[in-house]
């Protein structure tokens, strides 16, 4: 009996050890919460010094200077601290890709096939990904989990980053369909390039236009199909893009090149879609056209080298400023595979160093992202009626010197900032006797 007990305990222990996570999603908090004495960066450009946020049942019910905390409520004193809306990662493979290289089994972000609009990222989203905790600790509280690959990759869903499972995590389902446009630049065959062999000549424009015709043909047929309510044979692919036509979904068009973005205007003009350009590193060249056509932009990679050796050395850093100036609605992203997206706020910091105001930069990772993802009615700024998705930082969140997160709330729940990295930190600080 003793032996059996031992066996059971060790089994239990093993199970715990395998799952390892002793970081728990926070319990629901339905009560009242005051965050007081902080500098509130609302997310819409407004800054409230020494302000208070009142939260009830997970929602922000008051924001301002002259709000006093009631006695029975939970109070978080943020004296000298900076309060921000929870940051939003607008396009990511978070929860779909655990180990980027060499461990195929840990990856679920790219499906086989070219036209996959019915593929849904949410069903593979792994809430136990070790990456997620490090993002929460950086103040990133929401993410739009996005499939990749093919021409139409599927639909993305927004999740909140403190959940037991994907159904808990779901914040907005299938809000965007993702299309990858073909390239208009013929990349050399690397084999030939490095060996100095003659390149096979292909006309990239011709190939690209053929592919684009194919994409449009898909949407034309989908539109026709969707006008007929009943079908003998159901087409899941057409069904999956229904939301685009009734504007319940947006079309996220991935591409960096000017010609790709000009083609994207077709999706506005011909189909009336809400179009968002993702990538768009060359968007600074046609910012006014994007504005005119109401195309929003998600800049994927700000910490990048300039596209050409002749470009201004700071071109990618100042692209956000150029979009802001033209009035384009844009958000910043972080898809850096080696740091795993935790530097989103520093992308915004760089944008602030190269032209944006700090509040504009903040907006590009909060409210703008929420607008683009269609969740700005619920989050993206610290305004009354929205979810209490809140981050508290010791100082300027955009600058690594001061971006030290002391608390974070998702829907009013104070979430754990612990993660695998903080735990290993403590473990080894203990080993060396350095823990205070």
């Amino acid at each position, binding site marked *: 009996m003793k032996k059996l007990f031992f066996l059971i305990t060790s089994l239990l222990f093993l199970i715990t050890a395998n799952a390892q996570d002793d970081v728990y999603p926070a319990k629901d908090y339905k009560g009242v919460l005051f965050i007081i004495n902080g500098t509130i960066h609302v997310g819409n450009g407004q800054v409230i010094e020494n302000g208070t946020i009142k939260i009830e049942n997970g929602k922000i019910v008051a924001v301002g200077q002259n709000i006093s905390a009631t006695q029975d409520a939970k109070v978080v004193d943020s004296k000298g601290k900076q309060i921000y809306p929870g940051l939003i990662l607008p396009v990511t493979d978070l929860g779909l890709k*655990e*180990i*980027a*290289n*060499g*461990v195929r089994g840990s990856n679920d972000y790219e499906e086989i096939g070219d036209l996959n609009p019915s593929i849904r990222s949410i069903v593979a989203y792994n809430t136990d990904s*070790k*990456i997620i905790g490090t993002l929460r600790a950086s103040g990133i509280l929401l993410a739009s989990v996005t499939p990749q690959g093919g021409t139409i990759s599927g639909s993305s869903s927004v999740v909140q980053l403190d959940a037991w499972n994907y159904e808990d995590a779901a914040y907005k389902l299938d809000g965007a369909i993702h299309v990858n446009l073909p390239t208009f*630049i*013929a*990349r*050399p065959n*690397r*084999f030939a*390039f*490095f*060996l*100095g062999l003659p390149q096979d000549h292909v006309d990239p424009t011709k190939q690209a236009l053929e592919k684009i015709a194919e994409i449009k043909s898909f949407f034309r047929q989908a539109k026709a199909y969707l006008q007929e309510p009943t079908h003998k044979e159901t087409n899941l692919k057409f069904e999956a893009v229904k939301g685009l036509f009734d504007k319940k979904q947006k079309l996220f068009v991935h591409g960096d*090149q*000017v*010609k790709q973005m000009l083609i994207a205007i077709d999706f506005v003009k011909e189909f009336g879609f809400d179009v968002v350009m993702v990538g768009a*590193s*060359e968007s600074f060249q046609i910012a006014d056209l994007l504005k005119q056509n109401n195309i929003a932009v998600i800049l994927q*990679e700000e*910490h*990048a*080298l*300039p*596209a*050409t*050796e*002749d*470009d*201004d*050395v*700071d071109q990618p850093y100042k692209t956000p400023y150029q979009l802001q100036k033209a009035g384009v609605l844009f958000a910043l992203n972080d898809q*850096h*595979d*080696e*740091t*795993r997206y935790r*530097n989103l706020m*520093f992308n915004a*910091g*760089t944008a*602030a*160093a190269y032209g944006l105001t700090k509040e504009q930069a903040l907006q590009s990772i909060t409210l703008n992202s929420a607008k683009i993802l269609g969740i700005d009615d619920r989050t993206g700024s610290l305004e009354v009626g929205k979810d209490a998705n809140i981050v508290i930082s010791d100082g300027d969140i*955009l*600058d*690594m*010197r001061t971006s030290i997160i002391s608390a974070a709330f998702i829907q009013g729940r104070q979430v754990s900032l612990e993660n*695998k*990295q*903080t735990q*290993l*930190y403590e473990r*080894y*600080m203990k080993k*060396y006797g*350095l823990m205070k």
Partner: protein
Amino acid sequence: MGILRMHPPGKLFFLVMVLLSISFYTKSQTTFPVNGVADPRTATFAFTNATIVKDGQTTLQNATLIIREGKIISVGTNAQVPKDAVVVDCSGKYIYPSFIDIYSDYGIAIPERQRNGFDFRAPAQFNSNTKGAFNWNQAIKPEVDGSKLFATDDAKAKPLRDNGFGTVLTHEKDGIARGTGVVVTLANEKENLVIVKEKASAHYSLSKGVSSQSYPSSLMGVIALLRQTYLDAQWYKSKPAKEGTNISLQAWIDNQNLPQIFDANDKWNDIRADRIGDEFGVQYIIKGGGNEYQRINEIAATKATYILSLNFPQAQDVEDPNDARFVSLADMKHWELAPTNPAAFEKANIPFCLTSADLKDLKQFMANLRKAFDNGLSEEKAFDALTKTPATLINVYDKVGSIDAGKIANFLITKGPIFKEKTVILQNWIQGEKYDVKEEGWNDIKGTYNLVISSANGSSNYTLDVKSDNSASVIGKDTLTTKFNYDGKIIKLSFSSAIAKKPAGTDSSAQNKSGKFGGGMRGAAASYRLSGVSNGNVWNGNGDDTAGNILTWTATFAKATPIIADSTKKKMTPKVGKVLYPFDGYGWEELPKPENILIKNATVWTNEKEGKLDNTDVLVKNGKIVQIGKNIVDASAKVIDGTGKHLTAGIIDEHSHIAAASINEGAQSVTSEVRIGDNLNPDDINIYRQLSGGVTSSHILHGSANTIGGQTQLIKLRWGVDDDGLKFKGADGFIKFALGENVKRTTSSNNNRFPDTRMGVEEVLTDAFTRAVDYENAMKNADANNKKKGATQTVVRRDLELDALVEILNKKRFITCHSYVQSEITSLIRVADKFNFRVNTFTHILEGYKVADKMKAHGSSASTFSDWWAYKMEVQDAIAYNATIMQKVGLNVCINSDDAEQARRLNQEAAKSVKYGGMAEEDALKMVTLNPAKALHVDDKVGSIKVGKDADLVLWSDHPLSIYAKSLTTIVDGTIYYDIQKDEAARKYIVHERNRLVQKMMGEKKSGGATMPAQPSFQVILSCGDHEHHDGLITIDASDEDVNTNK
């Protein structure tokens, strides 16, 4: 003796018709049997009344050239014409020695690369696939003998002959050591007779060509292989029993007394090749790449003679701005300046010859040569470069290259001075045999002729006005519509009497006399088709007319067309842009120089015990920091106001892969013989970009494809200097090691290279150092033995790979080791303990925090990423607190980039340790300045702001750890290499210069010049192959497909 031979029908036909009765001289070899009747001839010719350009110095007027049996018998103004000579009157003609091309593969096929089935991810091929007693490396094949491969190829010879070439040095253009070249004439004869010199040269290149062997996979590997082969050949002379017979090494030794020709093909490669030569006492003749004008001083310093191609780039079609965007200014400038390349050589007094090699269409040869003239090349120099210079270089000037008695009768007959725009080459004589180039040009047929057309009905007279070979008019009463063609012999003439198609009875004055042949064909056009032969001043022929009448005709020369003097407008040298250093929009017209600089009133982060000093001045002189204090005054110094700004030591990147032409020699697990310093690339724009981020020194590491990688190179970011100038002088040598997933090729599904596990990695290290110890002992023993009197000399093969390892054992070379997980870190430390050396630096070292105590005990530095993780299995436990923990344990910790983009923000990367673990700010800054200086053993020179140290400084707009800080000025050795205001000016210049060149290229297209589609200027970003990089639209990450490692 005539041999039964096949000739093209055109040639036979021509033989029958030829007026100058130049015989078809069929040479034959005594040993070859004759099928038919012998036909021995001496083929003696006398070319009289010619202007003979014997060589670049001597021109004879009204002279005679006599040739016999393919040789020149005499040349002079009073030469006796032998009685048996066929006399060719060359009045008004010029005779030149024919051209020589010493970089040809005429008659030698390039081996085909097997494209199918070749796969980068295929298993490595460790040994040569060539069967036989040859070299271990498939690309080293000095035994290849061009004379054995050569086969006459008249189809290839003709275009060369048409451009004036008579002799070429040809070789097999494949491999690193390519074997010997053979000098042949371009005569269409049996191989036995056209070979002038069987082994005239030995050839080399930096490309392994079709070799399927994995090694070498990088430029630095090629260089190492060449160096090792020189050493091996030296050693092979001692007939080492262990080597057995090595035909390749013997051939290498035998070839050394020949002229050594190196296909370097690029300005930096020229210099790299020359350095290999210098090391082994060889002066190569270097085949350049056409961009040498960009570094002409460095090229001159090689003291080499060059072979230059006239393959100038075509204009690109840049009409679409979206295409033009990706064509770099450098490529556009090169298009404009490439034709100045030969002139740059002439101006710099660098000897050179010209080659037709690389031209896609040989017809461009003369056109491009004229472009070179337009851009400053002198005709005299060009002539030498095509005759005497190449002949002298390969020691055949006694046979070809000038018109002198005794030489081979290789010469050109032209109608005017050879390089004048309208001059045509009429005939190209090779080995005393005539080859037509433009026979029809021999006689000037321009003029008026009396044309008499006769038929049974009588005859009629016209005037024939011949304007050129293909244009003439027949004049009766009026000028008639005429078609005319003269091919040197045959005349074709047709014309129609322009009878007006008017109703009958109307005025018929337009009719000419031909009407009478028409017999009642009034109102219809009569046309005549005539053909004939030129018999000198009289042409005779026959023909018919529309009515079917049979005609004969005669045209007799009446008078010449008066020559209108060529209005010799002197061509203006075209206006072209300036050469910049580096050849890039951000380059300099003139390199910046060290200045006396006084930075006033800044917050100075000294990194010394003084700490951070407010409102402090720093004075820089002669490249050094000379004074730090308050209120410094120095009238000689340029003052920079530092009020409100921060001054720090320049950032040092311990782990970088910029500014190199190749990074990974991954074909073997131990490649300590390769050196990054052999292939620095000073043109890399990332040098400039990183200066803008405050970086002043970078440690350029070999990649991580193998356990023992190559020797590294510490550089200073002196933007604009040459490769040697980049090197950090006086710094200790380092070498890159790597452990873990990369070296066991985890991402390859079919790795066949040992090791495949961390167990094997450790054994690779133990084995390598064991061999190194044995090698060192063998060397020492041999030395001791050889000093003994009368001892048989022992020769130990020098091994560059083991030399580097012996340096490590002797603490003359230091290791920086790519490593991640704790087991591999510990195991390398134990190997080092065993062999009594220290692992100087662990780089990446993301699990360093787990064994920081062991690393400290061993005495290693750590160089890590701030917050990288989860990009592969071995970094699952990486934490952003790593630097802080290691620093708290007492290690010397650096933060490095390993990424060309992130290197621009290393100060911010260091700042992350303030966020993760609460490191003090001054300590954080030291992680990218003083600590890497310590790790690299250069903290006596750089890394802090201290009197006496190098003035490598950055003036920041803001707190240097802040994301808002930008470098305003970056100073290296007291020289301002980056300045934010100068940068503004450079941006404007780029816009302006790009626009100018786009317009110029469009002009070229409009004026009908050949253009090609716009070619994006792809930028190769090299990396260690460890992780993804975040590069632009037209960058190629060289690690993507792991081209170099054959993964």
